[in-house]
């Protein structure tokens, strides 16, 4: 019991240790089937609820792609994302259309990366988390597990 409390305390004392963003265990299968073909299934904590709502409302023109799902599936995925969304104050706004890569948190976590790496052919796009975080789909973003050698510290 005391240990649990300590862990809880530690967790809240160091919110900056956000190198693990596990996928909630109750993720509906529709989320993985519909949202992991063109990029990894981004963890819900990466955006705030209002931004997930905005994103889910515009799947017909989703960054130039058609990511539409039927209404029932859309509601299921939307409810899941909003329930497990990141807190607005910690994540920050994501712009319109909402991008994880435009949130204050993403920008802060990556502010030491030289601009040329975002255009590197091995990376292609900042949204390609797996190019640098090989276990991103499993929610692991540790700075000790970066696959681009020059970016390792």
């Amino acid at each position, binding site marked *: 019991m005391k240990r649990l409390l300590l862990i809880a305390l530690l967790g809240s004392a160091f919110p900056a240790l956000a190198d693990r963003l596990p996928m909630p265990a109750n993720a509906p299968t529709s989320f993985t089937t519909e949202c992991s*073909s*063109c*990029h*990894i299934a981004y963890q819900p904590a990466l955006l705030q609820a209002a931004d997930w709502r905005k994103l889910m409302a515009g799947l017909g023109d989703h*960054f*130039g*792609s*058609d*990511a539409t799902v039927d209404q029932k599936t859309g509601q299921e995925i939307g409810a899941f994302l909003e329930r497990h969304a990141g807190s607005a104050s910690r994540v920050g706004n994501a712009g319109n259309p909402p991008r994880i890569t435009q949130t204050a948190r993403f920008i802060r976590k990556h502010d030491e990366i030289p601009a040329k790496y975002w255009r590197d052919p091995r*990376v*292609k*796009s900042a*949204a*390609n988390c*797996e*190019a640098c975080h090989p276990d991103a789909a499993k929610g692991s973003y540790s700075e000790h597990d970066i696959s681009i050698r020059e970016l390792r510290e």
Partner: protein
Amino acid sequence: MRAIPAVALLLASLACHAETPQQIRQIYVAEASSQQAGFTPSAKRGEAFFRQRFANNDKMPACTSCHTDSPLNAGEHAVTGKSIKPLAVAANPNRLSDPAKVEKWFGRNCKEVVGRACTPAEKADFVTFLSEVR
């Protein structure tokens, strides 16, 4: 006219369980034949379609932009860099096993690359190519 209920029946009977590439090909052949008497699918035309460059989207001018020059190879999404498993049945036995999935990706990819829906004949040729390429 008579072919339409046949297609609907086939689709309905295929809706709930895994199917073979032959059955999926048959759906598109039936649909194409209803528009064009005597239609026979061709892997060669399917391959030409796979390689054709369309002047619709400069980030992805052809199917090969994401699926590479050979459907036997793993591909990579042209925008996001995400890896994509091979499309050919010989290299990936999960392909052409779910009619709704195949139809969904024809819908998306044809719109993005060709700028319109693919015709039943184009789809029949394409799945024939994916089933036969070795």
